[in-house]
């Protein structure tokens, strides 16, 4: 008796494509953001237009964080924190993406477009 039939493999392929389609349907539609909000602590200190290239210095709790906007994206260039986790976060372009320099209290969040969640969030 043959253990797996063509029908089995067809079902497996069908199931795999269904799972793939679910990723496309539920995770794929994050849209490009149009703006970035910059927070120090809980207060928003700046709103950046991502369509215009620019550079910014944000005064946080322990010093100056440098941000750059370019090609519809925003990123930390430098920050006075030990780990530079914010800098390593790299470019942010999609709605809802966030980079934060916690020691300096500076948070950048991409806004605009349609917001999509990637996990239970309420």
């Amino acid at each position, binding site marked *: *008796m043959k*253990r*797996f*039939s*063509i*029908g*089995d*493999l*067809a*079902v*497996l392929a069908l*199931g*795999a494509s*269904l*799972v793939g389609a*679910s*990723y496309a*349907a*539920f*995770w794929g539609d994050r849209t490009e953001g149009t703006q970035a909000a910059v927070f120090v602590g809980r207060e928003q200190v700046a709103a950046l237009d991502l369509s215009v290239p620019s550079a910014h210095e944000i005064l946080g709790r322990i010093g100056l964080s440098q941000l750059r906007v370019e090609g519809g994206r925003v990123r930390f260039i430098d920050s006075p924190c030990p780990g530079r986790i914010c800098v390593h976060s790299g470019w942010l372009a999609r709605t809802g993406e966030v980079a934060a320099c916690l020691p300096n209290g500076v948070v950048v969040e991409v806004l605009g477009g349609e917001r*999509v*969640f*990637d*996990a*239970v*969030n*309420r």
Partner: protein
Amino acid sequence: MQSIADTTGSAAAAGQRDALVAGFAALAIAIHILEAAFPSPLPGVKPGLANVVTVVVFLRWGWRMAAAVAVLRVLVGSLLVGSFLSPTFLMSAAGGVAALAALGLVALLPGRPVGALGASVLAALAHMGTQLMVAYVLFIPHSALFGLVPPLLTASLIFGTVSGMIAATVVDILATEADSS
């Protein structure tokens, strides 16, 4: 397929069938409870090894016996774990019914093209998909739930494949034993 469920003419066959259903349900419940005792890496994700029993019974003795085993497992399993008529039970029951419906579809296909692996994968996906729908309609009507769909479906595809392979092996062994006896 030779099915004991078809030979309901004699009382002896019926008794034998009931004993088989009870035995397999007990086995499935034991697996179910063992699984419930293990912590899960992801909430809502369990390997669902008890479904191996359902698939094996389905392939060897037909859909009706598989349905009897699955219904008994969900009812008695929930009584033992203490989730009877709770939200967990509703999810479990809905998933079980959907899995049985998937197996029924497999049985209806002409020429039986789908074996243990395909049946198990279909049942697992139907189980998870229905549970997500029930969760959305009854408990969390929030679009954030959709974000959970891809990873949970991935998990059910993987676990469905694994338990399908186990079920295929068991069906094979049962077939050779039946031939040699």
